[in-house]
């Protein structure tokens, strides 16, 4: 194994700033799950084709398995743990998932929820076709797609209601 090259980055995760020593080949998934212990972000295909590791980086949905942690210096990351409000209440997207049965086994759920958050931040009232376009890279192996689409619509409606 070549000599280890450590690099230090400063990264904001769910609003908190962390200064972390990492190695160049670590993915952002590894940083989130192992360095920070935030295991809500799941790791499955490790090739950018399942979406289970989706987080939001500077507003964009990002597959954390396909991003090197060492390229994340100064970036702002949000994981599923960052959605829950400080009063302990579920975020409307999370509540919609519970209400509309968006999860079966739940392994894809955090990734879907973060992709949904990125979508609704840009487009608060997406059509079903727009939902399919935005979430098309997220795989649910249980096949719960119809209920996931229902959950996104319900979340959009709920968030709209919050604003009203």
């Amino acid at each position, binding site marked *: *194994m070549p000599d280890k090259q450590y690099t230090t980055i400063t990264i904001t995760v769910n609003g908190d700033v962390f200064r972390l020593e990492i*190695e160049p080949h670590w993915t952002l998934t590894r940083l989130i*799950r192992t360095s920070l*212990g*935030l*295991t*809500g*972000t*799941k*790791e*499955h*295909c*490790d*090739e*950018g*084709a*399942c979406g*289970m590791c989706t987080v939001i980086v500077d507003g964009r949905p990002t597959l954390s398995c396909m991003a090197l942690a060492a390229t994340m210096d100064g970036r702002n990351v949000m*994981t*599923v*743990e960052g*959605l*829950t409000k400080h009063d302990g209440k*579920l975020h409307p997207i*999370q*509540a919609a*998932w*519970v*209400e509309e*049965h*968006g*999860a*079966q*086994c*739940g*392994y*894809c*759920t*955090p990734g879907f*929820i973060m992709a949904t958050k990125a979508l609704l931040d840009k487009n608060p009232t997406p059509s079903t076709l727009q939902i*399919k376009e935005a*979430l*098309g890279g*997220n*795989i*649910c*192996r*249980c*096949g*719960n*797609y*119809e*209920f*996931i*689409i229902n959950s996104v619509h319900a979340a959009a409606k709920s968030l709209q209601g919050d604003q009203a």
Partner: protein
Amino acid sequence: MTSALRVVGKPVHKQGDQLRATGQAQYSSDAHLPGMLHGSILNCPYPSADLVSIDTSAAAAVPGVKLILTPDNCSDVLARTYQYIGHPVACVVATTLDIAQHAITLIKVEYKQKAFVVDPDEAMKPDSPQVFPGFDNLHPFDLCSHFSERNEQGLFAKREAATDYDGFGDVEKGFAEADVIVEDEGYRFGLAHAPVPERRGGLAHFDGEKLTVWSTTQSAQQTRGYIGSVAGLQIHNVRVISEFNSGSFGARGDDTGFLPDSGPDVAFMGAGHDKSVALAVKASVMLLKPVRIFLSSNEENFYHFWGRGTTYCRVKLGFKKDGTLTTWDMELAVNSGLFGNRWTFMFSNGTALMLYSRNAEHVRIKKYAIFTNTPGQVGWCGYGNPEYMFATEQVMDQAAEILGMDPVELRKKNHMRPGDNILNVSRAYAHTGPNWLGSGDISAVLDLLMEETDWKSRKPASEKTGVVRHGLGMALTCQQCAGEGVGSNAIVKLNHDGTAELCNTYADTGMGGRSACRQIAAEELGLTFDKVRIIAGDTDASVWGTSNACSGGTMKYGWAVALACRDALKTLFELSAPLLKVAQPSELATVDGEVFVKADPTRRIKWEQAFLNQGNNDIDHTQIVGKGVWIMGSGPQNTEKAATFVSLDVDTETGQLLNVKIYHCADVGRALNAKDTKAQILRIHHGFESVLGATMILDKATGRLLNGSYIDYPVATMWDCDVHPYYIESGNDPTHPYGAVGLGQALQNGIHAATANAIYNAIGVRIKDTPMTPDVILKALTSMGEQAVNGAGAATQAGNESVPRVCETA
């Protein structure tokens, strides 16, 4: 009873969903312990090889490496003969995963490569290399079942072991007496991977006295025994934790990793030959440290098993002129890979005997295993049935055309009804007396889907023109949810504050089974859903239950939960009777944590008062504990019954399937939770992926899997099809306290045939291969064109080498 239900059948949030949505759900792969070591497994890169030598000195010299397991020091888990690519050879345990993975590359292994075969067609040839030396690769299944001694109701009282075929009657006689015989063959089902998300593996921690294992198993109680045998521990010192599980789909049985590799009759359903948990256990016991070993890539996830196997299938059916199906003769060969010839066959073929058992007098099902240097099949929903029902439900369609009947009408004439024979050929299940269908109304299922799909306006392919042609097809399906001899224990603990805890081993793989158990307990105890908690993910705190495989959790766990609650209430009422001044406990009832007199509900006490009537002091409320034990016996059997209709368009220029809509309806007896029930049906999405294109592609020259990634292996996405889930509740199945039957197997059995029947309805070509990729459909269309040129009846039966042979004997 029905009208009074408060929780069962009512909408509840699925157990654990809030934790899933917040990322707090702890799956086994999320478990970490301080001081944990990491393991990485060296897999054999060849499909068939012997170990000549292994040199671990360079790997052992890497700082941080703590242990290297090889066949020399771990012969009960690691073999010296390798029979498929990915077969584990060695394992490095180190302080970090990086170090373990690096050290693996430094292990020098000398293999003696041997001749191999991965293609089932090649394997059947006489000069093929033998996967198991001394056994022909085409291996007749010899654990068959003959049924006999029909009673007055026509039910078989006796099941005898046989070596030649499964069935009953005399098919030669049946065909001699048949008016119409329809026969077809050549159906093949491409290898498909079981759709599991969480990678397999485990975290094992042996502290010197007790071994704790976080495992991705759906069979915690059974796994505990296997782990104990590998660890050299009795099972009271083994604790298995499996709190949240990703989808199981047959690949969470967790058994074979603990069994030594050997001959053709070994492997059980489940994990295939993945040995990650067994190796973690071994290492932890040797090092007295926590050791975590999970498969390290998605490709590795593909190595150790598949979910559906390649099949050769021939079907010959005999009918009376009016469509009565009297004789069923079938021959099939399944690519059993390295898993040998046992379990797939045992489970798969009860269904063929059941679905049309009503009128059939003569049935013969002959089965062969094809051994190849590949892993083997796990019990993915349907477990062997989708492969051959792909053939049988297409031949039924052909028969309908020949008989001049509507395909649905032909099914209606012959499908099973309550009280008809259920014929489970599996020797995993006992047969102590007649077994019959407990409940169900298949005709009602068919009527609903005919209505939803406007079946009556369906036109034959000969009337269709244009580049894009629409088709509508259907298939009938069923599957028995486990069988005689399975069941569970349950314990319920009542607390004085009007809450309860239920303990059993229902694995949580997302189907909502733990919710269902909570609903049953809440209903029985007169509590609301939130007042009942279920403890099921930790063998230290739960009690025995059969693996909730075969979508049989409903049947295996339902009655035990209800009986445990009733047992606890018996105690509660005994303690309450003197306080409420009634002579008999049976005069009492309970709701919302209060016990009352049925005849005078104003006379009531809180549970707490009853709890304090046990001679205890007033700060020790104690608990009231109830137990339930339930084992399935002979008699009515819990069975999933359903139909799948498919509407689609075929692009005849590109061979692409467009606008696929799947309508699936099951008779669930009773839906405990409407959304859980419909969600279960949505799982047909991952059945459709093996229609669309998902198949494991092996390089014939090297045996390597070429598409072990989600980029090249097209797993189901949101875009591929729309699923319309329906269910009916025809009512009380006696095998469940609230009349429910299992759901999740049959919905995978009909989708492939239904799609092929829809394609036939669109373009008049029979598709006999899965997946039904553009090349397959274009090829079929091309040969249709050729046949049309040659004057053959293109619209009826073309596109493949074999066409149904029709013989009108009368």
